[in-house]
């Protein structure tokens, strides 16, 4: 239709012209151009990441030695290591996960399956969405005021884990809600029609379907917690710790704080340490992400 409209001045030509012209041609050119522009934007993002990654690996690979994992921090760049920060990260993240899994997933299940649909719930949902966008430093200030000072936990593993827990709670809940909403209502109705209780329906039918999405949400949130620096510096995480943590009331340091400390040092050697620390952190976060993908696929098969 559009084609014939563009050639009214040449009535002797065939009515159907396969060569697009005029507006159609412009639309097709735009379509082709958009494909290349979008490809370009994708490549720009990926290549920035690749360049950063290569640069970091080149700077830091030489420092990723067994001693780098077993040494404590040191004023000598070639003797400094991640031991206390790896142990600190394991403690803080384990505790954060132990808190966020039951509370985050529980809240999501309650909101989606049990909560009365009223104005209060609406306010809670809006708040959750807003909280997910709050910068981490704000959670740091909150953690400092409540956990470190008001509850007198000090700059301990417990205070750090509670702060990170609050930070990733909203995004865990939102991801879990999404996952639960993906389960078709017909499954719930089928279960209820066969006489299952509401809890049996949730436990036996909704959760298995929602599990891949819920696990993905938790793991991605944990990856964010693993890389968090600002909030923990705010609550008073230390940089130099030369012992292994043994209790949740211990002072602690984590890998990102150690990296941040090294990047602020003038000596060339500490920058290599920082790059090596980034490699370790990247591998950890990547492992989280791959783990999420693998788990998701495993559950999808059932």
């Amino acid at each position: 239709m559009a084609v014939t409209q563009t050639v009214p001045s040449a009535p002797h030509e065939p009515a159907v012209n396969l060569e697009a012209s005029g507006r159609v041609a412009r639309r097709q050119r735009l379509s082709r151009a958009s494909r290349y522009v979008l490809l370009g934007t994708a490549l720009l993002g990926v290549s920035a990441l690749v360049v950063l990654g290569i640069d970091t690996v080149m700077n830091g690979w030489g420092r990723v030695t067994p001693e780098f994992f077993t040494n404590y921090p040191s004023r000598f760049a070639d003797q400094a290591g991640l031991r206390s920060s790896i142990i600190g990260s394991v403690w803080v993240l384990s505790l954060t996960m132990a808190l966020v899994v039951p509370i985050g997933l529980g809240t999501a299940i309650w909101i989606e399956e049990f909560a009365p649909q009223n104005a209060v719930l609406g306010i809670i949902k809006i708040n959750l969405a807003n909280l997910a966008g709050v910068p981490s430093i704000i959670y740091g200030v909150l953690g400092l005021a409540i956990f470190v000072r008001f509850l007198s936990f000090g700059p301990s593993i417990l205070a750090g884990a509670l702060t990170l827990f609050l930070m990733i709670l909203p995004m865990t809940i939102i991801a879990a809600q999404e996952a639960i909403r993906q389960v078709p209502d017909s499954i719930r109705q089928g279960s209820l029609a066969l006489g299952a209780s509401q809890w049996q329906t949730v436990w036996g039918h909704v959760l298995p379907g929602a599990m891949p999405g819920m696990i993905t949400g938790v793991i991605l949130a944990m990856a964010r917690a693993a890389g968090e620096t600002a909030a923990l510096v705010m609550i008073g995480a230390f940089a130099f710790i030369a012992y292994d943590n043994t209790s949740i009331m211990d002072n602690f340091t984590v890998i990102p704080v150690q990296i941040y400390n090294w990047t602020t040092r003038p000596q060339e050697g500490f920058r290599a340490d920082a790059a090596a620390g980034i490699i370790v952190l990247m591998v950890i976060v990547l492992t989280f992400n791959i783990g999420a993908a693998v788990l998701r696929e495993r559950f999808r098969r059932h």
Partner: protein
Amino acid sequence: MVVQRVFGLGRRALLVAALGVLLASCGYSGDGLRGNVRIDGSSTAYPIAEAVAEEFSKVERGVRVDVGFSGTGGGLEKFCRGEIHVANASRPITEREVQTCADKGITDILELQVAIDALTVVVHPSNDWAQCLTTRQVHDIFRHGGYTNWSQVDPSYPDRQITGYAPGTDSGTFDYFVEAMIKGVDETAFHRGDFTASEDDNILAQGVANDTNAIGYFGFAYFVEVGQDLNAVAIDDGHGCIAPSFEVARSGEYTPLSRPLLIYTRESLLAEDEAVRTLVQFYIESSDELVPEVGYVTMPEDVHQAQVAKIAPFLP
């Protein structure tokens, strides 16, 4: 069934976590002095505290020494709340901070000097005109509403825009520069805000290294590290041009840009907490050896002896 699978996996994860805890708890358990000393404060003084903590941990293996770097102001705030035992500072405690401490019942503050830090004003290596600047000229470049063109600094200088690099307002270096170079010359002046500011010395150094019209400043220790790319400006504070060096910083000739690095602790802690006392004693006694290792300037002998004398009454 799928849910069971998840919990099966969870059990394994729990086992791994428990193993981790077990491994982590295989820490030191020996005799000797035990305790926990928390140090926080100036990031400028952090490398010194880190060196002290590192060496101290080798000697007193039962004492846990934690060092943070939340800034001089942040460290003193925590100190006044009783959250830390030793505060690192790159400037003396203010009247107001003393008052805050007193409000929290902390009145027995003890100030000890551990090293000397010097600031260095730097320009691009091809800058052959500003080899030496007077305190007044530096003041007029960095003050609010100050010079914007090198020809204003001195008529013989080229007609070029001045670009500036300065540490961010949170850094102790900035506070010290304001006190020495801005307020020190004119009490009513302010540091200008239109220069590139960064808490990261790397960014300042790179900025000046890549700009022939640039001027900036940061710690002398940092300049020694990256100095090859930059020119240090000699400072004329009324008695001739003095270029920054370890010697002039120690002798006190390099005014007004050399300053003491301090630690604050409480007399009652020194008297009652053996771990804190031993650490502070170690801090003072080992400073001559450790301070140069991390790029700072040691105190003259008489100043060092004065610090030893300050803690002597608390030693057994």
